[in-house]
């Protein structure tokens, strides 16, 4: 479903040229649960942005469902983000002082989904993310960290995306809450969603079906069983 071929990303600023990704190639099938690990500055976030169509590669091709999206215009990328990708961020990024309901339906607003259908979709997605419609009228700043991230997950689900991209989704949560969030992702994966997440934490990498490790812009390891991964073992508890 996702096929990345020889992707290179170079950031040009003034006189300095920073190579964030060097000739990266891999593919991900539908239903996978992939953890991307690597030290800071390794290029994993850049890879995530390209996979999420927030950015385009300098060179190389990115096929999403067989369609090359690496050369699309900004507006076309926005359409792909709207219809095929769900984002979950480390810092949740909920609309401030806004109800849970309005936060969840935000992607539906841009997808022109009729208003009378929104409540039902929001209810289903919030349930899948582990909360109930009782939370609809709560304001985003009244929620706990775990609840906020569940709302963010529900928001990522409403457009029924092909892939869910999560950038350190448990990074701002304590380990217990992080565990619950991780379980939520695993449940979604069992229901058939493709999930790609960036993480620093060992226990999360261990729960993933596949681990890709990036260092200095290159893939140094790509394994389907974490027990065979040297990189996962290197992560400190």
């Amino acid at each position, binding site marked *: 479903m996702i096929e990345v071929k020889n992707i290179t990303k170079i950031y040009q600023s003034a006189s300095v040229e920073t190579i964030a990704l060097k000739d990266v190639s891999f593919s991900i099938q539908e239903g996978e649960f992939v953890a991307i690990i690597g030290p800071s500055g390794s290029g994993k976030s850049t890879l995530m942005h390209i996979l999420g169509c*927030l950015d385009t590669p300098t060179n190389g091709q990115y096929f999403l469902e067989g369609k090359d999206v690496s050369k699309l215009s*900004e507006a076309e990328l926005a359409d792909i983000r*709207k219809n095929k990708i769900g984002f979950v961020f480390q810092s949740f990024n909920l609309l401030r002082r806004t109800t849970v309901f309005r936060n969840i339906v935000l992607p539906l607003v*841009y997808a022109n989904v009729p*208003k009378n259908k929104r409540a039902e979709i929001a209810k289903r997605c919030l349930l899948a993310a582990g909360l109930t419609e009782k939370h609809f009228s709560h304001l985003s700043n009244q929620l706990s960290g775990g609840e906020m991230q569940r709302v963010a997950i529900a928001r990522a689900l409403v457009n029924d995306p092909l892939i869910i991209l999560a950038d350190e989704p448990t990074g701002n949560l304590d380990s217990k809450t992080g565990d619950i969030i991780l379980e939520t992702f695993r449940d979604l994966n069992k229901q058939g969603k493709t999930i790609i997440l960036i993480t620093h934490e060992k226990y999360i990498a261990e729960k993933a079906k596949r681990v890709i490790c990036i260092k200095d812009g290159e893939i140094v390891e790509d394994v389907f069983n974490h027990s065979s991964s040297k990189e996962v073992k290197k992560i400190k508890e």
Partner: protein
Amino acid sequence: MLISDLFEETYFAITANKARSGLTILGIVIGIGSVIAMVSIGQGAAGSIKSNIEAMGPNLITVTPGSQQTFSQVMAQRGSAQTLTIEDGEAIAENILNVQAVAPELSQRYQAVYMGKNTNTQITGTTSSYLSVKNVELALGSFISELDTRLSLKVAVLGPTTRDDLFGEEVDPVGKTIRINGINFKVIGMTQPKGGTSFGSQDDVIFIPITTVQKFLAGVNHVSTLNVQAISSEVMSGVQNSITNLLLRRHNISDSSLADFSVMSLEDITEAVTSITNTLTILLAAIAGISLVVGGIGIMNMMMTTVTERTREIGLRKAVGAKRSNISLQFLTESVFLTFIGGIIGILLGIGLAYAVTIFTGMTTKVSLYSIMLACGVSTTIGIIFGYWPAQKAAKLNPIDALRYE
């Protein structure tokens, strides 16, 4: 993005920071309000001056003695020159086509006394045709008749202000005797109030037969003005020319530039006054317009702050599929909405101010539909102009940078 979603987002954005939105709107309110109030004062002044001039008499042409040079010189020499006579007026009435009536006039100020009360007022000597020529209506009694003029009778018709001064309000002065410059006059009528004008009150006056003024008060043979009424406004310029030619002939003057009188229609005066009041209105509106521009800059300032504050939110919206156009439209709607609300409140404020000006200063004001529509259009345009840049700034944000913005 559905239209209703756009409005909903706008509503939430504006109400999220009520104090700031309110203060920003206030800038526009003051701008629009002052424009409307100022224009209404200007237009009110123009309207009242115009209607006052028209109230002097329909299709009126005035012939005044003095050389025909500039407006001001004519005014200065009026009264001092002694070149026009009652006979000139009669000649105009008899010989010129399309002349409805001619009312000669000789005005001077004298002291009028009744039972110890006295007032210094304008004594206007005229004939019976004055009533129709100058659009004067009678409230009580009768006006000067042809017989009164022919026999130089000592009869007087009071203006309402003069009546109030001499007799007090609501008193019927008809039949009483007043003294003007020491001579007894019998009051035979009173005119309807016409209201004050920029050229002095038309109510503070006593009308007496012109021959009486000439013989008993002033001791002269000339008149100060010939008021000529044309039958319609279309023939005004023709009548003006004929009067000039006739009087030149009668006064034996061959060169029209040496004429010892001047002929002016009310239209000429109205035109001059209108151009002055229009300039005044534009000046007032321009001054008020400055505050509107300042208000617009306030809007831009707020929108710039909002865009900066909501950078992460913009990044998120883009991440979930918002296009540039969605973002810029959202911010543009917000600023247009702010200015539109400001415009509506400003219109109400402007109308209120105009009323207040009328009540407290007595100046006539006129709030026209035109100025309201102009204000609405201007405020919306300001929203678009001053909202455009911040909206573009928001739309152009790179989603990745925006999401990382602290």
